[in-house]
């Protein structure tokens, strides 16, 4: 099972992405759709981390010079993920805030009923 060993993170990441997308597509409830967004985000973040992951690598921190040429994971994706998480959180917070307002207006969170803006 070398394939799974090598690519397990990718499979997991894309699995999460697909689950997220599926949730957004299929679920009528806005909150569930937002949860789908969160899952999608997580999947993407996991994917980014996997890009830079090195099996058995250490943290990319040069604190002790004697550690020498030990394999390290790529630090850049981690930085990216940090940013992405922050952004994701902002989006989620905004989405949930909007959901509350939307519920006040419509009395429902069913996305298929909230179609006043169309055509």
């Amino acid at each position, binding site marked *: 099972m070398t394939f799974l060993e090598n690519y397990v993170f990718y499979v997991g990441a894309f699995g999460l*992405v697909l689950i*997220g*997308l599926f949730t*957004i597509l299929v679920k009528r409830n*806005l909150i569930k*759709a*937002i949860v789908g*967004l969160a899952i*999608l*985000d997580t*999947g*993407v973040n996991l*994917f*980014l981390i996997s*890009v*830079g992951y090195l099996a058995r690598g250490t943290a990319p921190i040069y604190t002790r010079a004697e550690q020498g040429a030990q394999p390290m994971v*790529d630090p*850049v*994706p981690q930085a*990216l993920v940090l*940013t*992405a998480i922050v*952004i994701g959180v*902002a*989006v989620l917070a*905004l*989405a949930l805030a*909007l*959901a509350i*307002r*939307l519920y006040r*207006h*419509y009395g429902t969170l069913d996305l298929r009923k*909230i179609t*006043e*803006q*169309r*055509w």
Partner: protein
Amino acid sequence: MVNPVLLIVVPLGFAFLIPILSLLSKKIAKYIPPIPLCFNIVVSLLLLPRALENPVVVSIGGWQPGFSINLVAGPVGILLSAIVAFVGLLVSIYAVDYIREGATDRYHMLFLLLLTGATGVVLTGDIFNLFVFFEILCISSYALVAYAGDKAGIESAVKYLIQGAVGSSLLLIGIGLLYGLFGTLNMADIAKALQSPTSLPVFVPMALIISGLGVEAAMFPLNGWLPDAHSSAPSPVSAILSGIAIEVGLYAIARVVFTIFGLSIDSTSNFLMFLAVLGILTLLVGEMCALGQNNIKRMLAYSSIGQMGLILFALAMASSYAVAGGLFQLVSHTLAKALLFLTVGYMTYRTHSLDISALAGIGKRMPITSLAFTIGAFSLIGLPPFAGFPSKLLIVRAALATKECLFFVLIGGALLGTVIEAAYFFRVVQVLYFKDGNTNIARKQVPAVALIPIVIFVILIVGIGIYPKFITGLLNSAAAELLNRVDYIRNVLG
């Protein structure tokens, strides 16, 4: 020596200054946005001569290019950042009077953030940084769409948010794949390493990035959010969204396609052809949807889709004429559409209705505003002597110069779109001037503060229409920069 970083830092700083200052006084918030935007215009103009010679490349943190985040202020970047600042300035002046209700300090803060994001997108040379600025732009626009807090606004914002979030996830995946392939995020670096854009491993990230950016740039099947968001937002926000946000998205697509993936007319890939077809499809769908609209702002929103399609088509032709024409169209659309939304803002404010038929007879009650609307509409249709004419002329000319049947057919579609566009805009003009309507509307002009930006837009539209040389020089070098990948790489990497 002016640094392009200032273009981003100063508005960002002022944006966060607003909530603090508004602790002192509620009224002060609305006067703050013009300050950094004025500053940005000045800086852009100061940078312009240098940028025209050679793009100004700044690395943040003093790292070597390729390892650090860098800003590339070439002619395109400066042109667009100047436009962003300029349109932003005019809209912020307009908003001084227009935005009265709700938490005005937050509005102004979000507004500045949005413009910061837009400026960042056009200046950055790092693809992840592009994503970050895009998110700044998007999140603030979600919030701004919902600003009024009414039913339509909230609904549109939610839908916009969901689609936008999906889009940016796709963009991020694409960026991740690119990083995985090339180990770098610097656009020039990636471009240098990337050889064949058609090989499958490269195509997948390209497809992801284009789909992701396409959501923001209102490409045809990806633009479900646009008519809702643009029509439900407060008018100044609509003006910015239609005038700046989607253009920035389109710029990002062009930058990615031309610079990173190196597609050009003489490359073996005919993906550009696909984009051209998609552009015309977008154009036709937008114009056709706009034709039957009764809601004026929704009509304008669909018209924006159409215009985006035209610009996309022009950019996808990838000849220097075509790209110059596309950028010209971008400029003229920005001016005209911003003008239209600003005028419509006060018209609908007076009539308390977004229905086109409710605007009947407003030409008599608000003559200057109506005149401005008419000029904006004529410019969008592409009638001389307004700014839309030379830009459309350049695009048609470029399409005919390709001497390819496909482009002849496509430009035929574009011209058909123009006819439809003429049909609905002329109908509105008739309603404004030649229909007797509601006499209850107060015979009241737009307040002077709001009139200033409107008049400036009108002057610019007429001025550029009569004397296009005013900006064609800049546009030509911008087009050259956008198309010349080798020079871009050399300039950035030294």
